[in-house]
């Protein structure tokens, strides 16, 4: 069938006009840009391929479409092509990119281990004096506590005396330094790295009597990194480990979509994916993580599989506490959004399309007496958001802020008397648990009743306490029941596939029906994708 296309000259002119309009924004160009056109099947295939697979179609695919047109089989072929793309491996490109844009899973700047006592650094990175092998590995606190300065060992093989004690050489700068040993590290079996002998120790108990698989023990610098350096993290190991957290959360979503399960399962899944690096982190490194505080990984240590760090294959494992809520309590999500308010805010923005925004006109002056109100629900200006944000944030109240640790009610009850006493004793030095998790600083008379109360319980009313005890799943279920989740999922996908937000008219006219379909269809996200790209509007392009 013969098709007529605009002449190349007009098309190039139109393209140049479009380009120029995007830069200059003239009125005449605006007028030309608003007239929609309907793309032909080849351009439609290109759109579909870019949206669903993240790349243009191949020449072979386009020729196959031409052949189908000649054979009169186009209607079926396009629908079949959409199904084929959705069923193909490359559909993950859309799933992943969409959810990267929703969840922002970057934790690159975080310290998964304490750099002072558990991060193996090459000598060149810290006060390197230019002497010796710059790649020999050491730990800052070991230098500080054992060598007398933030220095590595000397670049010579280590020696021991007749009693088996390391031999140190005194240096003019007042430090003392031992030699190095070669160790086969857990992150690179079959190879050896040069490690300072003190760091290569495998002591089970530190000088202060604390176990060497705890932060308290490792903090002394007297423990060493253990067998194969398992208690420590090198930069090479970190480069392998850190991307696994992003991969973990993406796999959790990808699986639900690919298996055509209800999209809402991403919030209810009680299992998580693990591979070798994550197992190693959960078993050896997480228990020592204090800032951010991890301590207890989502999958209990005694339930972890026996997987070497280098094993990158994935397997599924049940998580511990019931209050977990799929991706909303994943390591990646909790580490990326480190306060309960941030976690709630991201959920509201990404999945309810209801971001928290400051009221028009801004906030009152901090010098205004009304700004002195300690309860943000009541504080002038702040209450515009916090009246909703605080109840929402309460759902994450049992997950530590600046960390991921689940605050087991048996270990972290709502009230601790000693923390209350400490709070009421001016100048008292409260212990770490009280300072970190309980209200110990009273800056306003209204805060006094909360002395010794678990911080996440402060200011909570009965309804918020119920949210806190139930966890984020309760928030999700409410959003499912009232339709907000379905509507927002549709809106977000529409924005991606149609390159624009829905207009007010479309939100009123089209969105409810699409959301209903999504709900009635069992929250099949892939089916929603197909629905949106097979609507006639997808083929109409505003230029």
């Amino acid at each position, binding site marked *: 069938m013969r098709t007529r296309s605009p002449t*190349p000259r007009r098309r190039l002119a139109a*393209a140049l006009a479009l380009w120029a309009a995007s830069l200059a924004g003239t009125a005449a160009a605006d007028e030309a840009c608003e007239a929609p056109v309907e793309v032909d099947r*080849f351009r439609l295939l290109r759109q579909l391929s870019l949206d669903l697979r993240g790349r243009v179609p191949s020449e072979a695919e386009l020729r196959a479409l031409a052949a189908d047109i000649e054979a009169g089989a186009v*209607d079926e072929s396009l629908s079949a092509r959409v199904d084929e793309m959705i069923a193909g491996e490359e559909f993950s490109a859309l799933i992943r*990119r969409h959810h990267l844009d929703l969840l922002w899973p970057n934790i690159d700047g975080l310290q998964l281990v304490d750099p002072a006592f558990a991060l193996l650094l090459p000598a060149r990175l810290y006060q390197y004096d230019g002497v010796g092998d710059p790649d020999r590995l050491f730990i800052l606190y070991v230098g500080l506590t054992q060598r007398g300065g933030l220095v590595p060992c000397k670049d010579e093989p280590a020696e021991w005396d007749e009693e088996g004690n390391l031999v140190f050489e005194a240096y003019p700068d007042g430090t003392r330094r031992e030699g190095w040993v070669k160790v086969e590290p857990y992150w690179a079996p079959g190879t050896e790295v040069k490690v300072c002998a003190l760091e290569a120790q495998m002591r089970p108990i530190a000088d202060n009597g604390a176990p060497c698989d705890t932060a308290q023990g490792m903090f002394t610098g007297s423990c060493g990194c253990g067998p194969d350096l398992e208690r420590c993290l090198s930069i090479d190991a970190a480069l392998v480990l850190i991307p696994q957290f992003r991969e973990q959360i993406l796999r959790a979503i990808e699986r639900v979509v690919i298996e055509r399960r209800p999209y809402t399962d991403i919030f209810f899944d009680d299992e998580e994916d693990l591979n070798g690096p994550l197992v190693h982190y959960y078993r050896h490194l997480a228990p020592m993580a204090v800032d951010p505080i991890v301590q207890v990984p989502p999958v209990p240590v005694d339930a972890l599989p026996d997987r070497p760090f280098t094993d990158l294959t994935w397997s599924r494992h049940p998580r511990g506490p019931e209050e977990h809520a799929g991706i909303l309590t994943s390591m990646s999500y909790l580490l990326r959004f480190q306060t309960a308010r941030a976690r709630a805010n991201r959920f509201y923005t990404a999945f309810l399309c209801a971001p928290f925004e400051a009221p028009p006109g801004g906030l009152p002056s901090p010098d205004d007496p009304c700004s002195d109100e300690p309860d943000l629900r009541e504080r002038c200006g702040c209450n515009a958001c916090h009246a909703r944000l605080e109840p929402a944030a309460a759902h994450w109240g049992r997950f530590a802020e600046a960390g991921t640790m689940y605050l087991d009610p048996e270990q972290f009850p709502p009230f601790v008397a000693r923390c209350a006493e400490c709070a009421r004793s001016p100048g008292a030095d409260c212990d770490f648990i009280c300072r970190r998790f309980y209200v110990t600083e009273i800056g306003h008379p209204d805060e006094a009743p909360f002395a010794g109360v678990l911080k996440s319980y402060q200011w909570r009313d009965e309804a918020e306490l119920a949210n806190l005890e139930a966890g984020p799943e309760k928030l999700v279920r409410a959003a499912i029941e009232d339709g907000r989740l379905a509507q927002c999922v549709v809106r977000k996908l529409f924005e991606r596939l*149609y390159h624009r937000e829905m207009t007010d008219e479309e939100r009123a006219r089209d969105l409810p029906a699409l*959301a209903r379909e999504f709900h009635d269809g069992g929250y099949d996200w892939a089916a929603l994708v197909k629905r949106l790209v097979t609507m006639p509007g*997808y083929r*109409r392009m505003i230029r």
Partner: protein
Amino acid sequence: MSGRWWMVPIGVLALAACEEGAPHFASPAGDAGGPPVVDAGRPDVGPDAAVAPDRLSRAVGRMTVEQLARSIPVVTGGLRWMEDFGNGPVDMLQVLAPTLGAPDYLLVTEENLEPGLIIAKFLQDASHRICARWVERDRAAPPEERTLVHHEDWDSLEPADVDRTLRALMLRFHARRVPEDDDAALEPLRALFVNASSTAPPERAARDGWLAVCIAMMTDPEFILY
């Protein structure tokens, strides 16, 4: 389910009340109502047919850096923009991704998809490097392995040969299918090929011609917009 047994009957009640308490979605008219429509018997209207402005439509958008990275190899038969600055080959798209606005989800959480000057400059640079390599690689390949030129004699300047390849490249780069009886659509690129090839030394005529065409097509907004 310690401590939450009370949620079970509440959950059951919620399910039982599902009909009554089910999400309320109004039932409007418009494109979203009814079964999906996919070219229901309508003839192929061809590219860019005008439609009424009041119906739901899609806006033109720019490829993301990621889509560009995945598409260039498809179009060029596997080539990427690779450079070696002395420490081994690097993928320039990966190196330049932050500059081009690709999000890192820490400092940049949303990719700016405006077809601005930075992406235009990048495509200009990329096309010069990639097209030059594509031309040389294609010319050295046997006919059955070529991805750029589609005729037997690679150096042929015969109009029929050139047109055949131009049609293939328009389909490949822009998904523009130009019928066999439509020569006018090829005129700008044909003119470009002729100008470039005729001003080159004879031994480079075809190479310069196809190099110019490749660069023109890769830097055309039609490539990066969809």
